[in-house]
């Protein structure tokens, strides 16, 4: 099962103390970015004070060099080592290819709004603060791993950030994790995947390539194009 480690270009970005939910969540440029941190007790955070006029939104951006993934993987697991707090429910989302950051180029504050609504996982509802957390990547992620040379993702809060639902007064949810800049690789973020068969590697009629053995009787390994695509 091959592993791909995240580039050390990963970054924690945050918005703090904004007077409105939209002002914290929907801005173009993050207020604070750290692309050198090794771990963060609150890498993902959603918070608002009792007066509902001080909102915080924290996100974690990372990228993987998937240029060597030539066939859609049969499965893939994102592994992130927890640290400290663990009460924010998370989700993995696609970062737009236009973001400055990739596996070899640091993310920048202006990438904060490059998160998309494309989910790469289900909601993550439990989190170990002292071990690797294994997150199953969905068929969209598997397809993108093979079709994109740079697999850019963000870890964000599910219940409020992904759902674009303002948190109720007094909410504080935080989840911590280790980043790629941690010394050594024993706690670094990585993707472990099961290699797929070479051949046609795209979704056909809504069915993920990994779930397709043949198309009209022809093995996917022998298909280069379907209907000219």
């Amino acid at each position: 099962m091959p592993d791909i480690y995240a580039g050390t270009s990963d970054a924690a970005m945050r918005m703090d103390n904004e007077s409105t939910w939209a002002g914290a969540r929907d801005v173009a440029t993050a207020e604070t970015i750290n692309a050198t941190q090794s771990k963060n007790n609150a890498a993902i955070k959603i918070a608002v004070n009792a007066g509902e006029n001080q909102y915080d939104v924290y996100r974690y951006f990372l990228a993987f060099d998937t240029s060597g993934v030539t066939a859609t993987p049969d499965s893939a697991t994102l592994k992130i080592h927890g640290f400290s707090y663990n009460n924010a429910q998370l989700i993995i989302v696609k970062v737009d290819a236009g973001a400055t950051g990739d596996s070899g180029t640091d993310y920048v504050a202006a990438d904060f709004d490059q998160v998309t609504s494309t989910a790469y996982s289900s909601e993550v509802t439990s989190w170990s603060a002292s071990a690797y957390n294994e997150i199953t990547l969905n068929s969209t992620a598997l397809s993108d791993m093979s079709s994109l040379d740079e697999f850019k993702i963000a870890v964000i809060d599910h219940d409020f950030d992904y759902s674009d639902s303002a948190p109720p007064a007094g909410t504080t949810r935080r989840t911590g994790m280790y980043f790629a800049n941690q010394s050594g690789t024993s706690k670094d973020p990585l993707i472990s995947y099961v290699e797929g068969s070479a051949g046609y590697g795209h979704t056909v009629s809504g069915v993920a390539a990994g779930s397709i053995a043949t198309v009209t009787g022809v093995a996917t390994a022998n298909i280069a194009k379907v209907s000219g695509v």
Partner: protein
Amino acid sequence: MRQFKIIFNWTEADHIDEVIYVFAPEHTKEITADDFLTMMLACVSKSISECDSDAKSYIERYLLSEEYIADMGVGIVESVEEISA
């Protein structure tokens, strides 16, 4: 838009953090960019705990976090500079 790079040297943890702090029109700030720079420059070469109370609070709230600082040990504010936006 203006932005600043603040370098923290964690001498006990043997790690360097480079934090970029951005002043953009869309951000709500309780301090001007000039006042931020003045406040932070007064911290250079000091440990975070030796910065004046306003700077220490700002670092804890907006640049790092109290828990992170406690975990990393002694952190020196190595440099503060404005960088091109």
